[in-house]
């Protein structure tokens, strides 16, 4: 009996503590707005897989400038992210690896204002370090036992398909492992046993010595355009807009350039 009462008392205390935590959280949101130290509030940024590492850095600088703001990245394939937003998932900003995923949201009325391009990227072949199969071109991928590509629905998969079409090369689907996003596709070579992969130049750069890069000739390569937009359903419109502005600012662009992205032009 006494034990049960003790448990009851403990429960009351826990509830009280939770209540206090909740109310303090809501006060801090209530204070959000401009002061000398920037904007407050919390943002969820749906981030294309290939942007993950660069946006991690963008996040650090943005929250340095706005110490009262907290930003979370939700990193996945742009197609998966767009699907999530369509289904009403919590997101304030969407940074996509291609315009197709963004257009789906624009058509569905899920964006606040228009999206704007903020970076460009290109594709490259990567192989196991030292390139044991001596892959020199897109055509040589036909000789590999296993080639990693993104699923056709993800932007990186669409870009890879376009590279193959431009080079007029068909790879037997029975030798292609389809990974869910750009990071996983690179991982199939760096951690897995895939012989080669078609990935973003930025991802290949970040992998450093874990892969050997085999450039795709200019006439076969494609240009990946990255658009960014504020999501219509956001409750943090000012902060979301500020984040988008920061990505496009010289400071944001400098970070992206450091990770190998090309300017949007």
């Amino acid at each position, binding site marked *: 009996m006494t034990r049960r009462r003790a448990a009851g008392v403990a429960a009351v205390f826990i509830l009280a503590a939770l209540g206090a935590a909740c109310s303090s959280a809501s006060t801090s949101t209530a204070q959000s707005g401009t002061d000398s130290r920037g904007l407050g509030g919390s943002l969820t940024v749906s981030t294309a897989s290939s942007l993950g590492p660069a946006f991690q850095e963008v996040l650090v600088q943005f929250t340095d400038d706005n110490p009262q703001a907290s930003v979370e990245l939700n990193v996945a394939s742009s197609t*998966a992210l767009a699907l999530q937003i369509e289904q009403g998932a919590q997101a304030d900003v969407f940074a996509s690896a291609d315009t197709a995923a963004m257009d789906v949201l624009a058509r569905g009325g899920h964006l606040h204002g228009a999206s704007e391009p903020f970076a460009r990227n290109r594709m490259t072949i990567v192989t196991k370090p030292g390139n044991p199969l001596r892959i020199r071109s897109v055509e040589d991928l036909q000789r590999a036992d296993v080639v990693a590509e993104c*699923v056709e*629905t993800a932007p990186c998969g669409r870009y890879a398909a376009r590279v193959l079409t431009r080079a007029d090369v068909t790879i037997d689907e029975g030798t292609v492992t*389809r990974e869910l996003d750009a990071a996983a596709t690179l991982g199939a070579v760096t*951690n*897995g*046993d895939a012989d080669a992969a078609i990935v973003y130049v930025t991802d290949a750069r970040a992998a450093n010595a874990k892969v050997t890069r085999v450039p795709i000739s200019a006439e076969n390569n494609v240009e990946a355009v990255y658009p960014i937009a504020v999501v219509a359903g956001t409750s943090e419109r000012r902060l979301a807009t500020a984040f988008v502005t920061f990505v496009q600012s010289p400071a944001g662009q400098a970070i992206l350039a450091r990770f190998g992205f090309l300017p949007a032009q």
Partner: protein
Amino acid sequence: MVAAGLAFAFIALPLIGLLSEVAWSRLWHDLTTTEAAAALRLSLVCSLAAAALAFALGVPLAWVLARFEFPGRAAVRALTLLPMVLPPVVGGVGLLYAFGRTGFVGARLDEWFGIHLTFSTAGVILAETFVALPFLVITVEAAFRGLDRDLEDAAATLGASRRTVMRRVTLPVAGPAIAAGVALAWARALGEFGATITFAGNIQGRTRTVPLAVYLFLQSDPEVAIALSLVLVAVSVGVLTALRGRWLVR
């Protein structure tokens, strides 16, 4: 009472959600598309092979765990059951570093036999066996423990060799439990996703099993994804129904 109702609803609602989205009239068409059929065929082959492998390896292990006292038995049992609670993707990473081309076992296999398990159908079977084996071991071990030792002793007194006792007495008596263990292992193997995609990749007709196809189709053709999901639900319900006497009534 309310909590119990909520718990049941929590489990039932996703199933209802899935069923409400099924395009029944196009179900057969969806399941016989080239990609879906390839995934179904591959899943059937791999899960049956994994169940057979789990049987061949799991029954002896269950027997040793049930019948022999040896130092570290508790640790061996705990380790055997680990894949039941381990995130499958972690299992896949472990398999990669053991059986991958540069893994400590995989490198030998490559060097001596030229065998590559990663990105192969054999790799899928390996990953599925890894996650399914504990289900068989735990079921069969319990049966061996609960077995009436007098039966075996009687057979031995009547002059039966150890092997004959095993074949004619122990295995038949434990038969239903072994069948249940195999069924559970098979169902678990059929649903395997994380370890498979991590270790064996996602190659059409080679390693793209039904769960991988479901995940893939969800982005391109949700109707096919739902049709394939329905097959997995049907199999799960079928296995549970078959095990009804063992689990549901008691």
